Every structure is written in C-alpha cells, then in structure tokens.
C-alpha cells in the first residue's frame, strides 16, 4: 500500500470515528469494505502521529464458525440424513447404497437379493439444526461437532476518540535535514517515532578473509613474543634445503613424487657427470614445509660475521603437498612455524614456550605426545583441549632439531634449535565453524561467510 493510500485510509477511519462513540476494528473493516489487516496498519500509523489521538484497546474473543465440512453440512444436511434421503420408498440394493454410505436404514432379507428399506417415513436432522444456530451451541457441543465447528481466537481493536482527537493528521517528519536546521523548522515539526527494533542500514564496505585474519592474529602473537619474521617468499626450493639439509634420507617416503610437487627443469641439460645423489639434491620442488627456510635462516645465523647470537624466528606461509584431497586437506596450505636457537636449550624451554604461545591463542591445556620425525629428536605432537568440542585435538608438531642437522649448518656445538609447526587452516576452521576446507580456501569460498564473519580474537571466546 502506498503512503498516499495509507493517508487516505487514516482519514476515512478518523471521519468514521467522528460520528460514533466507539467501533470495533473488525466491524470497521466490514463497514469500509477494507481488509482488517490494513485497518490495523492504518490505526498504527495514526498512533504514530500522537498517542492521544485515539483510544485503542486490543480485544480478543472466541467465536464459533463452521469448518469447511461444517459449511457443507449446513448446506446439504448431515451425512446421516443424506443416506436416509438416498433410500427410495421401494428400497435399494445394499451395494448401491454403500456407494453413498448408510445408517438409519435396515436390511430387508425377505426378498432376494435383500433390499435396504426406510424404517420410518421421515427423520429429523438435529445436526443441521445445531449448525444453523451456532450461537446456541455449548462448549460440549463444540467438542462433539469438532469436525464441523471451530472456535478460533479473534483479535481486534476497540477504537474510540482520544483526548486530542481530530480528523486531520499533521505530516510527520522522518529525518532531521539540513533545510530544517537552516530554517529552524525542526523546533515546531512533529517527528515520526523510530522503530528501534528494526536493523540499521548495512554499511558499504570491503571485508578481510577469515584465514588471513587468523594469519594476522598469529603474526601479532609472534611479534608480541619477540620473534623475527623470516622471508619465506620463495615457493620453489631445491631438494637440498627442503629435504637433505633437514636430515631426510633420500629414500624417505616424503620425497616420493607422489607426495611432492617437483618442478620441470626449465633450463637446459644438467648432465655434467654429477653422481645421482647430487642430482637428487638439486631437484627443484614446491616446498613441502617452511622448515626449508628455517634451515637457510639457521645457516645464515651460523655464518653471521659477528658470530652466533641466540635468535627466535617465525613464519606463516604457504606450503605444498602432492597428496589426496579431502574435506580437511588441500594440496596447498599455510604452515605456522617457530624456531628458537640458543646455547644449552632444553626440552622444558620448548614446552614452556609453546605453553605461552598457546595461552595467547586462548588455549590453556596442552599435552605432548612422543612421535617420530626425521629431523627432530626428541619429537612431540602438540595436543590441545578444545572446551567447545570437549576433546583433545592434535594441533601441531614440535621438537629439537637433530645434531646431524644443526652441526653441518655451522652452528657452534651446544646450540640447540627448538622448532614447531602448526597449521593455520585447522584453527581457522574450528574458530569459524567451517567443516569443509573448500568453503574457506579457493574459488568456492563462501563470500557471504567472509562478509558476515567476526574479527579474529583468539584470546576472546
């Protein structure tokens, strides 16, 4: 309904009220030939102009009315009476009668085949009588005839003139405008009240991706803990840094082509008599972990002009695995990695550091499980207790780099290197309640989810 139609209706309602003491909105609807719903809307609109214009009292009452079946009975008589009527004077074959249903009739077996005959010449139809005089029905009748009669609750408004009644409505201002300010008109104008239950207008905006919001949060935490960020903007690594420098034997299953993306050699022949092992180490690949960069960084740390200095590093960047894809695994994902090198570091230092890191991620309860990794010893899987899911989740791996890895880098004896790796996708999926990783990463991302997602506060539940 347009606003002009509404104002026309409000006017008609006010005019009508002028001439009567009070009127029920249902009655009014009938009088004006307008849907009741619209009358109620118009009354609300009138009230918006001033609470004291009208006196409005909500009324509820129950009233009996016929159901669809009841209306049929009221028109054609009860089913029983109908059966009676369908038996002619001379009787009817049972099968024929059954086609129309039957009672108040009897089976005459004196003839062959037996006939259905009327026992009386006429019957009364009390059901029909009741239905025609609905107002006289009692509550128990309503129960008895419940298929025919229903008793809905009817809500309406009892309208009468209020203390400030008038037949014309002043136009209400909807918003404060510049013109009103210049003219000073705002002081006189009646303003339409706000509906504070409605939502506001959606701000025009762009959005950040949830996984990258999580990346920012992790970065922030590492920075708060004094870690330096490693440069990991090199996806292509030689096998040497990805595997060999990390003490991964050349026959290790992870080096198989089916777990690693190897890069086609773009430059010419490499056949200048290297033995097989060196060729293997020179194969270029898409890094399977950022630990390849950690290895380089350690090498740089060891060969610093001023000698070794304790250091803490972190990175959060993409890694690649040529593995089977499923609801939680993609061929590329983000690895969160931390590395600390110091003289006489202990496993207790690693556990303590991880405890503090996870505390910043909002996780207090940690457990460590022995595990195997070719380049750390001892090696620990990190489990955290997720109170929402009420279970222990494996969230990452950690350990002390093997001496076979650390010493060849040129780090002085006695230097231990602690390292750990986590996934960024897993905590993001848990945090944002995402079950399928394709809904989070890649082109099939749900942009609605991106738009509606909250900011990432890991320490705030």
């Amino acid at each position, binding site marked *: 309904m347009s606003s002009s139609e509404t104002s026309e209706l409000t006017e008609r309602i006010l005019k009508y009220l002028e001439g009567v003491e009070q009127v029920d909105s249902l009655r009014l609807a009938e009088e004006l030939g307008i849907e009741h719903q619209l009358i109620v809307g118009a009354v609300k609109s009138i009230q918006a102009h001033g609470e004291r214009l009208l006196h409005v009292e909500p009324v509820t009452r129950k009233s009996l009315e016929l159901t669809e079946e009841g209306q049929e009975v009221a028109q054609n008589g009860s089913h029983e009476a109908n059966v009676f009527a369908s038996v002619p004077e001379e009787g009817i074959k049972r099968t024929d009668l059954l086609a129309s249903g039957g009672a108040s009739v009897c089976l005459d077996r004196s003839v062959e085949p037996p006939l259905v005959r009327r026992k009386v010449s006429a019957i009364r139809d009390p059901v029909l009588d009741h239905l025609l005089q609905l107002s006289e029905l009692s509550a128990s009748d309503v129960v008895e005839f419940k298929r025919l009669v229903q008793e809905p609750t009817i809500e309406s408004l009892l309208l009468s003139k209020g203390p400030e009644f008038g037949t014309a409505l002043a136009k209400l201002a909807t918003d404060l405008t510049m013109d009103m300010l210049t003219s000073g008109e705002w002081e006189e104008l009646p303003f339409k009240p706000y509906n504070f239950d409605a939502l506001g207008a959606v701000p025009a*905006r*762009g*959005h*950040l991706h949830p996984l*990258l919001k999580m990346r920012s949060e992790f*970065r922030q935490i*590492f*920075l708060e803990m004094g*870690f*330096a*960020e490693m440069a990991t903007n*090199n*996806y*292509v*690594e*030689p096998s040497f840094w990805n595997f060999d420098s990390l003490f991964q034997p050349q*026959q290790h299953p992870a080096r198989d*082509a*089916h777990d690693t993306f190897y*890069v*086609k*050699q*773009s*430059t010419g022949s490499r056949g200048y008599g290297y033995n097989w092992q060196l060729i293997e180490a020179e194969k270029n690949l*898409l890094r399977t972990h950022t630990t390849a960069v950690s290895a380089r960084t350690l090498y740089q740390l060891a060969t610093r002009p001023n000698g070794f200095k*304790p*250091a*803490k590093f972190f990175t959060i960047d*993409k890694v690649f695995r*040529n593995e089977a894809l499923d609801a939680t695994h993609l*061929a*590329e994902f983000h690895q969160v990695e931390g590395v*600390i090198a*110091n003289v006489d*570091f*202990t*496993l*207790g*230092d690693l*556990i*303590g*550091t991880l405890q503090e890191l996870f505390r910043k991620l909002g996780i207090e309860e940690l*457990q*460590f*499980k*022995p595990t*195997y990794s070719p380049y750390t010893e*001892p*090696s*620990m899987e990190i489990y955290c207790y997720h109170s929402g899911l009420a279970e222990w989740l494996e969230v990452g791996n950690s350990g*002390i780099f*093997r001496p076979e890895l650390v010493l060849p880098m040129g780090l002085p004896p006695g230097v*231990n290197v602690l390292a750990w790796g986590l996934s960024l996708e897993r905590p993001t999926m848990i945090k944002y309640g995402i079950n399928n990783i394709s809904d*989070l*990463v*890649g*082109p099939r991302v749900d*942009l*609605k989810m991106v*738009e509606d997602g909250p900011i990432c506060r890991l320490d705030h539940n």
Partner: protein
Amino acid sequence: MPTIGVKRDLLFDALGKKYTDDEFQELCFAFGLELDEVTTEKQMLTKEQGDVAAAADASEEIIYRIDIPANRYDLLCLEGLVTALRVFQGKVKPPKFEFVEPAQRQVLKINPSTAQIRPFAVAAVLRNVTFTQDSYNSFIDLQDKLHQNICRKRTLVAIGTHDLDTIKGPFSYEALPPEQIKFVPLNQTQELNGIQLMDFYATHAQLKQYLPIIRDSPVYPVIYDANRVVLSLPPIINGDHSKISLKTKNVFIECTATDLTKAKVVLDTIVCLFSEHCAKKFTVEPCDVVQTDGTIISYPELAVRTERVSVKRANAYIGINEPANKLADMLTRMYLETEVDAKDGDSLNVKIPPTRHDVIHACDVYEDIAIAFGYNNIKKSLPAFMQIAKQFPLNKLTEQLREQVAQSGFTEALTFTLCSRDDIALKLNKKIEALPAVHIGNPKTLEFQVVRTTLLPGLLKTLVANRKMPLPMKLFEISDVVLADEGAEVGARNERRLCAVNCNKSAGFEVVHGLLDRVMQVLSVPWKTGGADKGYYLQATEDPSYFPGRCANVMYNDAVIGRIGVLHPSVLQAFELTTPCSVVEFTIEPFV
C-alpha cells in the same frame, strides 16, 4: 605412519591385564603410540568395501588399530608391541637374543649376476617354531608391514620365508633371463616362467604394484635350493613348494635387497620378534652368506651396540635433574638396557639392541629418557634471552595494504597458487609457451599443472562460484605469483602482487582505477603529470586478455609494474562470467 591391527583380547592376554579403551589409549599416548580406532573385522570389511554380504561371516572380535611411529619397526606386530609395552611398564627385562650354532650352517651363495638387478642378500633360520593361527597371521602381517614401510614397497628389500624342511641347502641367489625361470608360484597350481608370471599377476590387486620393480630388466632375481627348486622370485612372489604353514617347524628367512643396511635391519627385526615362538625362546640360527668375492658373512648380525651417554648432558638436554641410576632405569624401560658407568658415575653405558635400529645418536637416547620421564612431567621453562621482534618488510606492507584495500570496499579472496595451464594461458587469450610459468613435473590433476603467473584467474573463479551474491562484486587478493627467472638460484622467484576486480552490470574501469589511485595515495606516490620525474601513470597498451582500447600499463617511475583494463568478452566467456569486469594487477615489491 603405519597402522597395525591387533586383536584386543590377545593383546590383553599377552600384556597380562585387561584395560578399558581409555586406559589403553593413555598407555599408548605416554609411549608415543596412538589408539587410532576400536573396530572389528566385520566393521572394517563393511566400511572398506561396503560389502555387507562378505562381512556377514566376518569375526566380531574387537580389533585395536594402533598407529606406530615410522621408525619403530620393532612394534609392527603383536609380539613386538607386547614386549615393548611390558618392558616399558617395568614388568619384564628386555630380552637377550642368542645364536644357536647348528651342526652345519645353512649357506646362501650370491651369484655375481645379481649385481645387475638386486645385489644384496641376507638369511637366517628359526628352529622349532610353534605357530598358532594367530601367530602365523601375525608373521605374515609383519612381513607385509615391513614391505610397505622400511622396504619401501619391496624396492629396497624383499622378504621370503620358507619351510626349511621342504628344501635343501646350499641355496643359490642368482639373476637369470625371465624365460629361464620356471616354477609354481605361491598358492598356484600351474608352472609359469618369468614372462608368463608378469602377465599372470598384471591385474592382481596386491602384486601388480611390485611388477615394475624388475619387469623391464633383462634378468630377474631368483633363489634356488640345491635341487634347483625355486624358493622365490624377489621382489614379486615366493614359490609354492616351500610355503610355510601352521605345521612348519623350521623357518628359512631370506631378504634380498638394493640397500644392504635396510636388509640387515629387516632380518634382525623379523628374527627378534618371532624367535619368541621358538622352543628355546629368543634364539636364532645364523646362516653363512657367500659373497660374490668368495668371502663369507654370517647373518643375522643381531649386533648390540653400546653408546656412552653423559648424565649431565642428558639432563640438560631435557631440562630435568635426575640421578644416574634413575636415568638408567628409565632407559631400560625403553628397551635400552643401561648401566651406570662404575668409574665416573656421570656416564651411562646404553646397550642398543638389534630391535632398536632407530637409535643412531645420543639425542635418540635423550628422547627415550624424556618419554620414560613423561613429556608432560617436564618442568616448563622459558628461554632467557632478549630479542626485539621484527617484521619481514614485504609482509608488513602486505598487511597494511590489505587493510587499505578492504577499507576501499573490496573483499579479500584467498585463491590457489597452483592452477591449470589453461587458467593462465588459453582462457586469458595467451600462449603458454610465452609465459614465464613454472611447470609441475608430476601433476596429478589438471588443477595442479603450473604455478600461477597472475592472481586474476583465481579471482575470476571466485566470482563465478559466488554468482548468488548481489552486484557489484568487488574482490581483491594480495599474494605471491611465481615467475621463471634464469637469474634466481632455483630458476624461479616469487612476486607479491595486488590484484583487484570490479564485476558489475557495466565494466566500471573508473572503479579499479580509483582503487589504484587510492593505493598510490596511501603509498605517497604522486600522479605523474607534466614534466614530473617521479610518480605513477597509465600508458595505453594492447593485451589480448583485455578489451581493445581499454587496457593500460601501470607505470611507476617509468617502469611497467602491472596492468589495468576492462576484460575481453572472450575471457569472461572462458571463465563463464556473464557480467563485465574491470581489473587492476600490479606488483607491490617496488614500494617496500
């Protein structure tokens, strides 16, 4: 990580204690194992094959599936697992393995011809073994687990086990042309030669994967007995003649290999774990293996190595402070019998048994101390040195620009680094040969053929997948592409790009242009006009990806840093887009 399935009741009988699932899980956790699944044979069949009919007859006995660390070959069967756990619980001492010298040793002679294909072989004998159905199954399963893991799917080592009473030494390990090798393979009735064998097993569910290891070789490895009975054709299959059964008493074990160290480890592992079923427990009969130069080496080695470990260093490494005798007890519980050195009291003499080939350095011993002590009992400490945090400048700039672009009304996408050749070439009206793309040598699917050279395809795919969203859709991504570069160490380098796309009922070039202006404004780069020598500007150009006359180079200090324009309708069509798009993409690296 290998997973083994053991019957729960058998396991608890052997451990001498019944556990609840949770209690057993806790024991596993402390020892570094994981109770992966509690299931039954019936459930596994139903789950794996969906074959309810086959599963109907299967057993409903509870099976524990347990994850075993990849370097602990000694835990790959019930026998080894039980011994290790009982030792860990301090219920028994680690077993000592002993040789029993026979009247005459079995001999395996290596023929020089094997050098062409599989040069190494080792052998051993287990005497007076009593198999039950369960221990027999365990014996077969162990060989399978070893084959899958340390043997690298039989490429490095292949195991053959035989009923010694059906064959007669000395044995001969040779390599012969396949058509000359004739025998009845295990559980078959028909005699096949080497070539027929390859055809016969070409479609066999388990064996077909091993055929390529030798198929194209002019000679196949084979082991004969003194009567020229074929024991096995490694690494494919054994002969039927010498197959072991529940009645077998004496077992001849041979391992052929391309890696001798691994063959020794495999042989040690099998004899250590199954000598438990010998009449005289933990005894093994050695064999003489005659090398091609005539020298004789006795196998298995069953070497016990002693590692000296400093108590002080061990404590310091872990961050605990335990006396020497406590550490010795802990190591003994980890299967490494240890005594405190009587002389200095600060050293431990740690015996590394032939079951623990994973221990190769003192740090492996430290780890076992830490496990026995309990990782979760170690006192937490924090490294005591100061460092000032530092961001990688390119990442810092990326973080700042992401905020700015999002504030300008663009929504961030996160797309794949790998894509198909068509995504970066054909669909963008480009030729793949002309692009500086890094190609994947072993792609599994079309989605992983190349590393992207542009962020654009990912954004266009994101648009298509989100067609239900109201227009305009404005997306961006700041991420790395990879470009082939002869000057780089690996022949390729990453480049950090900003790409933004505006998708609406009209192309709206000014929208992406406005974003470019805004980004340059926040980077304090002026619009280069008149004779100014610094700044950015647009230089008209033609690019087949873009609408003619609606494309420009983004210039910064007179160098091309990217491209801006309205996408060509054929590009839109290739990505199944029905709405016009304007795009800007440029490197942010000059602004670091």
